[in-house]
């Protein structure tokens, strides 16, 4: 089922604009992530698609050819996984999963068959008759997913599905969730503030900021070709290099840096993995800090501008604190992005 949003916006009664007019198109079977910091309107957008929030007049939400803008949530046939999971504590695992099918007034056999199928798919067999309170966080997450998926929804919506879990579990369950969603073969939209999560699970990521989708693309596109400094910073933590751009050269306090092209009116960004400690490098810097992270050192460099620039250094030894080093950045790793007056 395709999902199409046309100028969907939301203003709360107190005048707060939660969502500016937004367009979005999701192909059948595609898994799309809405990525953004808290308060960027991503959850509001998801709730509008679910029918839990009413958008402003003029908004349009379509599932395939079906205009569902004014359809109440209970008739939309969406599957929703809530941040807190919202599992019914008065029902068993099986009762929760069967609930949506019961609402469709299916026969007992049909319900039984579908529930068994979904339980097997989500590997919940050992927990079928457990009470919700007797489940771990990870198990609850799977039950929530199974419950949303069981009634064969047109679209699956997930609101921060991993945020209720502790950090260690989150990484494991991220892979598991990605696998399950692919096996479900369903159009899915999920909200997250964690770029690793978005990249690991989604086919396509829509980055949101201040109630607007600022860029949509595959994880690789967003990483390699961010269109705004916000996307560059939010996806992959790009750092801004301070200095004066003259033609295709950036003049910094630590030296002159070759740019890939002429970039007047542009800001220059780089990621820590593209900053190399290289004796032949054109820039001079002082080692300010060094943190050992197992695979590499994260070295903080001062003298390249007012702000500290970090380098991921893969060598066997960290340079001594306070020592002078030479720094190189390959022109192709530098991102030239239009200067933004209104910094977000």
């Amino acid at each position, binding site marked *: 089922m395709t999902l199409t949003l046309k100028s969907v916006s939301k203003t709360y009664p107190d005048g707060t604009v939660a969502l500016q007019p937004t367009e979005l198109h999701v192909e059948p079977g595609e898994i799309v992530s809405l990525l953004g910091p808290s308060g960027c309107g991503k959850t509001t957008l998801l709730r509008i698609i679910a029918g*839990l929030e*009413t958008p402003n007049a003029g908004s349009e939400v379509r599932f395939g050819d079906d205009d569902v803008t004014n359809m*109440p*949530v209970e008739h939309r046939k969406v599957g929703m996984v809530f941040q807190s999971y919202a599992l019914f504590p008065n029902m068993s695992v099986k009762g929760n999963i069967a609930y949506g099918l019961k609402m469709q007034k299916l026969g007992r056999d049909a319900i039984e068959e579908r529930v068994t199928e979904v339980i097997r798919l989500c590997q919940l067999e050992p927990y079928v008759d457990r009470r919700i309170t007797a489940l771990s966080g990870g198990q609850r997450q799977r039950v929530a997913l199974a419950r949303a998926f069981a009634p064969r929804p047109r679209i699956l919506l997930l609101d921060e599905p991993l945020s209720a879990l502790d950090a260690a579990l989150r990484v494991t369950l991220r892979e598991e969730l990605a696998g399950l969603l692919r096996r479900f073969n369903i159009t899915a939209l999920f909200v997250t503030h964690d770029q690793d999560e978005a990249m690991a699970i989604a086919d396509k990521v829509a980055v949101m900021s201040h109630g607007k989708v600022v860029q949509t693309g595959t994880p690789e596109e967003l990483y390699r070709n961010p269109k705004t400094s916000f996307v560059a910073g939010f996806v992959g933590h790009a750092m801004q290099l301070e200095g004066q751009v003259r033609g295709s050269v950036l003049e910094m306090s630590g030296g002159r840096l070759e740019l890939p092209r002429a970039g007047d009116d542009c800001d220059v960004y780089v990621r820590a993995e593209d900053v190399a400690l290289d004796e032949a490098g054109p820039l001079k810097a002082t080692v300010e800090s060094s943190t050992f992270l197992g695979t590499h050192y994260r070295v903080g460099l001062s003298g390249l501008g007012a702000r500290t620039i970090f380098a991921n250094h893969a060598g066997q030894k960290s340079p001594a604190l306070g020592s002078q080093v030479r720094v190189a950045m390959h022109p192709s790793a530098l991102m030239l992005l239009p200067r933004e007056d209104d910094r977000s």
Partner: protein
Amino acid sequence: MRPNAFVQLCFLPLIIFTLAFLALPLVRLFVSSVSGEDGWSIYWKVVTTPRYLDALLQTVFVSLAVTIAALVISTTVGLFLARNEFRGRGMILSVLTLPLAFPGVVIGFLIILLGGRQGLFNQITSGHVVFAYTMFGLFLGYLYFSIPRVLLTVMAATEKLDPALEEAARSLGAGSFHVIKDVIMPGLAPSLVAAGAIAFATAMGAFGTAFTLATNIDVLPMVIYTEFTLSANIAMAAALSVVLGLVTWLLLVIARSFSGTTAAAGG
């Protein structure tokens, strides 16, 4: 979620019932109080006629005495039960809270069994110790139904006190007396004020106990009752009810602003 007509529908039975049996009757009660021959001046009459004023003062006096006694007793017992574990503690707690559901009439009867003509004290002393139908008997009756309510409030509040505060006070060298004075009592104070207000308001309005014991004592509920049934002075009965209702309601509102919740009134 969209504005939900169903949620509004849920209020409907409540609103119909409350309008019909609470709002309108209360309005009617007030209207009755001022539509006698005295009109609005009936409220002036309440505070100037000695009989009504005496009854009012007498009721306030006995309620105040009950409140103080109930607070002292319940705090002593409540702290003892909350801070000590021993066999039979649960049993004692049951004994002390069971009277919670006894109606006022039953409590009146129990006081008669203690201090009536065939009462325990009269039998033991074989003298003439009959106090059931006096002010003291009424005081005991009110005390009987106040103790469980105040006790429950005190114990709930004691359980919420952080034991670390007491331990801290002790570690700084405070003895039992100072721990109680400087740590426990300030912690309990809001609950005690609330419980006291409830005890006071309940005693002010207690009818059942007064009905059995106060045949010769003019407390406000009995005055209202006789004005209504014997003298058929509807306006005065209504006016006194309005005064009584306002006083008890205000007290409980103040009590709630101290503690957040109030236990059951009644009696």
